[in-house]
C-alpha cells in the first residue's frame, strides 16, 4: 500500500515541525504525541520515515550496520558490499513481550543445534529509523522504562538466558497516547524530548480537504504521489540542508539566557528542559536556514519542549501550554 505523502497531510503543523526537528537532530530524545484516535498521528510518522532517503547498510546485516562499521555487530556481518534500504519504521504493538522488543535466545537453534544464537528484536529492527508506539500509556511500565533507556543510550544490552549481547539501537522514539485513557508517569514523560498535542482540525474546510486528499490518494496512489513529488522533494531538501547547517550553529549567550529565564519562570523541573529547548531551537533555526539561532526560534519550540515537564498541580487546572504562553508573554512581551 502506497504511503500517504508527508507534505499532503492537512494541518497538524506542530506535529510535523516536531517530527522534522527529530529528523534533523535525532538526539533530541523522541517525540510524544498526545491526541485522540484517528487524527493522523501514525500516518504522519510513517510518512516522514517513507520520505527520508534510503540508508546504506552492509549487505545482509540483521542490525543495519553502516557499511563503514561492518563487522561491529553481534552477528558479525562481513560483507563489503553496501545496499540501500528504506529508513526503518517499526510499529511496536500493544502487548509486545520483552522477548520481542529486546531480542531473545533463538530457541529453535538452541534446542536443535545446541547453538547459543541471538535473535534480534524490534529494537534492532528500528536502528537508524523510527520506533512508533501507539498508546504508549497502555504499555506495561517495565517495557516503557526499557525503551526509554535504550533510546537515551543508543545501545541495547541484553543479559539473559546466558546471552550477553550488545548492539547499536539508535532510533527516534515516537510515542502516542490519549491522556484520558491513563497517564504516563512524569519521570517517563520528562525523558521524551518533545511533546505535541494533536487535535482534529476544527475548521470545516480542513476536514473537507482531508477527505478530498484521502479519496484522491486511494483512487490513484501513483498519480497522487506524483502530484506531491515536488512538495516532498522540497521537504527533503529542507531536512538535508538543516542537517548540514545544524552542526555549525551555536546558540548565542543571549538566547541561552532567554531559555534559562523561561524555564525558571514556568517552573520546569530539571535541566533536561533547558537542554532540550536549546537543541530544539538550534534544529528549528537550521530547518529554516537561519544563519544564527535567535530568540524567536527558541520561543517557537518552547511549548513542545517544555509542556510535559511542568510540575503537576492538582489544584491548578490551567493547561500547560497556556502556562508557557503566559510566561512568554510576561517575559518577552
Amino acid at each position: 500500500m502506497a504511503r500517504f505523502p508527508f507534505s499532503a497531510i492537512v494541518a497538524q503543523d506542530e506535529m510535523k515541525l516536531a517530527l522534522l526537528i527529530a529528523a534533523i537532530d535525532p538526539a533530541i530524545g523522541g517525540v510524544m504525541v498526545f491526541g485522540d484516535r484517528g487524527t493522523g498521528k501514525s500516518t504522519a510518522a510513517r510518512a516522514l520515515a517513507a520520505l527520508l532517503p534510503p540508508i546504506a547498510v552492509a549487505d545482509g546485516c540483521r542490525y543495519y550496520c553502516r557499511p563503514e562499521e561492518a563487522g561491529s555487530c553481534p552477528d558479525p556481518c562481513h560483507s563489503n558490499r553496501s545496499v540501500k534500504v528504506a529508513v526503518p519504521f517499526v510499529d511496536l504493538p500493544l502487548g509486545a513481550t520483552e522477548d520481542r522488543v529486546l531480542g531473545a535466545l533463538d530457541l529453535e537453534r538452541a534446542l536443535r543445534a545446541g547453538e547459543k544464537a541471538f535473535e534480534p528484536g524490534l529494537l534492532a529492527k528500528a536502528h537508524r529509523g523510527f520506533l512508533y508506539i501507539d498508546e504508549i500509556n497502555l504499555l506495561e511500565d517495565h517495557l516503557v522504562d526499557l525503551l526509554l533507556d535504550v533510546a537515551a543510550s543508543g545501545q541495547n544490552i541484553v543479559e539473559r538466558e546466558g546471552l550477553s549481547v550488545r548492539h547499536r539501537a539508535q532510533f527516534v522514539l515516537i510515542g502516542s497516547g490519549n491522556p484520558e485513557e491513563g497517564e504516563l508517569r512524569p519521570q517517563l514523560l520528562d525523558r521524551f524530548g518533545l511533546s505535541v498535542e494533536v487535535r482534529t482540525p476544527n475548521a470545516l474546510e480542513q476536514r473537507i480537504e482531508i477527505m478530498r486528499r484521502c479519496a484522491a490518494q486511494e483512487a490513484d496512489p501513483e498519480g497522487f504521489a506524483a502530484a506531491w513529488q515536488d512538495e516532498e522533494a522540497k521537504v527533503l531538501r529542507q531536512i538535508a540542508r538543516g542537517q548540514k547547517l545544524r552542526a555549525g550553529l551555536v546558540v548565542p549567550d543571549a538566547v541561552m539566557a532567554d531559555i534559562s529565564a523561561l524555564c525558571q519562570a514556568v517552573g520546569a523541573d530539571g535541566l533536561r528542559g533547558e537542554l532540550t529547548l536549546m537543541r530544539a531551537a538550534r534544529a528549528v533555526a537550521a530547518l529554516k536556514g537561519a544563519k544564527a539561532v535567535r530568540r524567536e526560534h527558541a520561543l517557537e519550540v518552547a511549548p513542545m519542549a517544555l509542556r510535559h515537564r511542568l510540575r503537576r498541580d492538582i489544584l491548578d487546572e490551567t493547561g500547560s501550554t497556556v502556562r508557557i504562553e503566559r510566561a512568554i508573554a510576561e517575559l518577552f512581551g
Partner: protein
Amino acid sequence: MNQGADTVFADAALALELFLIAPRQLGGLVLRGPGPARDTLIERLAATAMVRRLPAHVDDDRLLGGIDLAASLAAGRTIPQPGLLDEVSGGVLLVPMAERLPAAIAGRLAQARDSGARPFGLVLLDDGQGPDEMPSPALADRVAFLADLGFARPDESTFPADRLTLAAVAPLDDSALAALAETAAVLGIDSTRVLLFAQAAARAHAALQGRRLVAENDLQIAARLVLAPRATRMPPPVEEPQEEPAGQSSDQAENPNSDEQGSSQPLTERIIDAALAAIPPDLLARLAQGAARRGSKGSGGGQRAKSKLRGKPLAARPGMPRGGVRLALIDTLRAAVPWQALRRREAGERAPEGMLVRKSDLRVRRFENRAAAVTVFCVDASGSAAMARLAEAKGAVELMLAQAYVTRSEVALIAFRDSAAQVLLPPTRSLTRAQNALASMPGGGGTPLAAGIAAARAVADAVAARGSTPLIVFLTDGSANVAADGSPGRARAREDAEAAARGMAATGHPALVLDIAPRPRPEAEALARSLHARYLPMPMADGAAMRRAVELARVGT
C-alpha cells in the same frame, strides 16, 4: 427518535452489504447483541466472503505465524506455521466475544489492519452488556459500522443484484464532503477516520444502487449508519439551527466558490436530520456517564494473579512456550537429559547431532504477579453528610490518582444522594478524566444508602470480572432515609440498606466503612458489620488522612 426493531435489522443488513462492496475502505462492522438477527447476518456474510473465526484463546504465534516448535523438534528442521492473519488474507475475520478480547490481541489486529499488507475485514461480535463491556476502542475505531442489534428480529431484506464496483462511483463533490464534515462536527465526532468511512459508505451505497454519482440519499445512509452511532453530543435543537451553521457561514464567505456552498446548506441540514433519526436512544444516558465508550482498561495487559510474563518466579512446569510464555531452558534440558541414550538408539542412524529434545520435555516459566487494585469510593453526598466531606472525598480520589501509576491502581467514584446512586467516575487511572468528572459533583437531598451499596457492588463485580481486585470504601454516616425504590421512609430505607449490605458481604469483596459523622453513631458500625467490612470512625479526616486509611486497608487485604 427511537427506531423500530425492524429498521435496526434492515440497517445492519444494509451496512453488511456496503461492507461487502468496499471491504478495504470500510474495514468491517461491530455487531452488538446476540440473537437470531446476528446469526442471519453472519450466514449472509459467510455465503459471500471467506470467513475465519478468531478463537478466543489465540496467541501471537497462531495469529502472526511462527515456527511449529513441536514439529520442528521431531523433524529436526525448521517447520514454519502460517498465522491466522495469513490464512484470512482477503477474507473476513470474525471475532466472537469481542468485548473480552485481550488488549494485546486487539493491538495486533489493529496494527495488521493499518499495515494493509494482508488485507482483511473485521466483524466484531460484541456480547457485552452495559457500557462497561465494549470492544476495544482501538478496533471499534477501525471499522465503519457499529450496529446494536439488541433483540431485533431478522427479516428478508433484498438488495439490488446489478451493483457497480466502488471504483466505478465518482468521488464526492465538495458540497457532499461539506455536508458530511458538518454533520460530523455537529455530532461532536473528532476522528477523521470516521469521516473517511462515511465518505466510502456513501460511495458504496451509490454502487449498490447502480449509480455512478453519489446522490443525497447515499449521504443520508452514510450519516445514519456511520456517523449517528458515534455521536458524542446531541446537536442543538432543530428549531434554532442557526447557531452552529452561523459560525460556519463566515468561513464559507471567504470560500471562492460560495455559490456552491449556498446550495449545500439545506443539504447539510437534511443530512444532519438523517443522522439524528438514527441516534441510539441511549445516547444521552451514555453521555451522562461521561464518555463511557472510552476504554477504561488503562491498565495494560496481563495483570492476572498468575502471570506468564513477570513478577515473582515460581517453579517451571511442562508446557509450550508460546503466547509470550518463556521457555525455562535449564529445566527443559534437565528433563531431556535422562532420555538421550534411549532416544539416540531409537533414532538410529538418522539421529541429528546435539541434544534430542521432544515436545514433552519443554518446560515453561511461571511468575506470580499482584493483581491490579481498584479502589471504589462510594460517597454519601446527601444533606445529612456535610458538603465538606464531598470535597474531602474528591481530594482523596485525586491524591490517590496522582500516584496511581506507581501503585498500578485505579480509582472509581460513586455518589448517592436524593433518590439514586450515580457512577461519577468509572474505574480509571487518568487524573485528567477524574478532574473532568469531579468538576461538578452535586450534593444535598436524601440518603439512598441501599442504592449506593447496589451501585458499588455492580462496579466491584465488573472490576473483579476483569481480573482485578476491588476495594470498596464507603464514606457515610450510615443513616439511610430513602428506600431502594427511591421512596422516602426511614424504616424501609434501613431494611433495604441492610439487605443490600448482606448481599454485598456474600460476594466477598473487601470493604471499608469510613464513618464521617462528626460524632460517630452506631448506624455506621452496624452497616460495617452487615458488610463484613472494617469500620473506621474518622470525624476529623481530610483527604490525605482518608488516603492513608485506604492504603492501610489495602495492605491488610
